[in-house]
């Protein structure tokens, strides 16, 4: 007796509000790139803020010197 397949056997992936794990996995590389974009945006708009300059940008290896503000005490009126 040959058992015929009567039709396609559907399986359902578990999903929450239309989102499931393989779909989310496929988003990961693109989202990582968007993370880079956001980091670049934040860097661009905080470039002039002293707290960010001293904390981050002055520690960039080659051109971090650009943000270092270290005047001679003879040149500032204190």
């Amino acid at each position, binding site marked *: 007796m040959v058992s015929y397949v009567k039709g396609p056997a559907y399986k359902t992936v578990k999903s929450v509000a239309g989102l499931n794990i393989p779909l989310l996995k496929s988003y990961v590389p693109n989202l990582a790139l968007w993370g880079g974009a956001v980091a670049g945006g934040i860097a661009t708009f905080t470039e002039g803020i002293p707290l960010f300059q001293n904390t981050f940008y002055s520690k960039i290896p080659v051109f971090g010197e650009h943000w270092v503000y270290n*005047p001679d*005490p*003879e*040149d*500032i*009126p*204190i």
Partner: protein
Amino acid sequence: MLFRLPASSLKSVHSLKDVAANSSRLVARRTPVRFASSSSASSTVKSVLDSRAALASAAIATVGSIAWYTHLYGTLPFVGQVHANSPAEEGLHPPQYPWSHNGWLDSYDHASIRRGYQVYREVCAACHSLDRIAWRNLVGVSHTADEAKAMAEEVEYEDGPNDQGEMFQRPGKLSDYLPPPYPNEEAARASNQGALPPDLSLITKARHSGPDYVFALLTGYRDPPAGFEIREGMNYNPYFPGNAISMARVLFDELVEYEDGTPATTSQLAKDVVTFLNWAAEPEHDERKKAGIKAVILFSSLTLISLYVKRFKWSVIKNRKIFYNPPVDKTH
């Protein structure tokens, strides 16, 4: 506006005379503009003279020469003017001097500012205040912090009130402003035969021709010309409006001994003190010019980019040809 018209439209103005004489040609003359270029090809010279380029360059030459004349002589050409004042009463116009900070890219000569401060302090400060400059403003511009502190401490300032509610004297600090020579305007007038020595903080901004005027005034003292009556206590200076100024000539050769060994001629003293006063009026000058360079570079490149993008985007529309194919009447 004239040169935006096609050149041949002038020709139609000419032809109006003929039209008046011979009205029967009016209909034929109605549309000379349209065919002007093809009909006037007989004379090359004429077509060059009638060209738009000729109109445009004539217009530019006219406007340019008028603008040049106006800039040079201060009035429009061939337009008469009547002045209540003689040129002497307005003061002689000073020449334009080659200041070290004249150019678009030129910063102040800070060594000159330092010498100029010395001249101000030793000469001008006897009568003129400099209210808007504090000792701290000199730091990092012409003096070190220690030098500025030492100079400030030589002056006594009134401070207070203390615990007993009394004002007291203390040596100056960096945050104090340069001391005025007189406590108030009345005292200044009383000491100068009624004339008020102006505050010098903004003097190069407050006079026509700015630093050129101040320099010309300082170095311009001379004997009055024959017949020029001058009151007792006044001095003749051609650059001063009215030519009679209460301030006597103050700058003479070797009046000040510069620490850097610069020969202290009268004109050197004047140049240095005017540079100093120009700094006092425009302390932001160096930063301003630097920001200006950046702005000019950025905005001009953005303009070029936007012009290119506009041409790029419009090229499709500008280059298209629209054909009209009338529907073929198939009944015949």
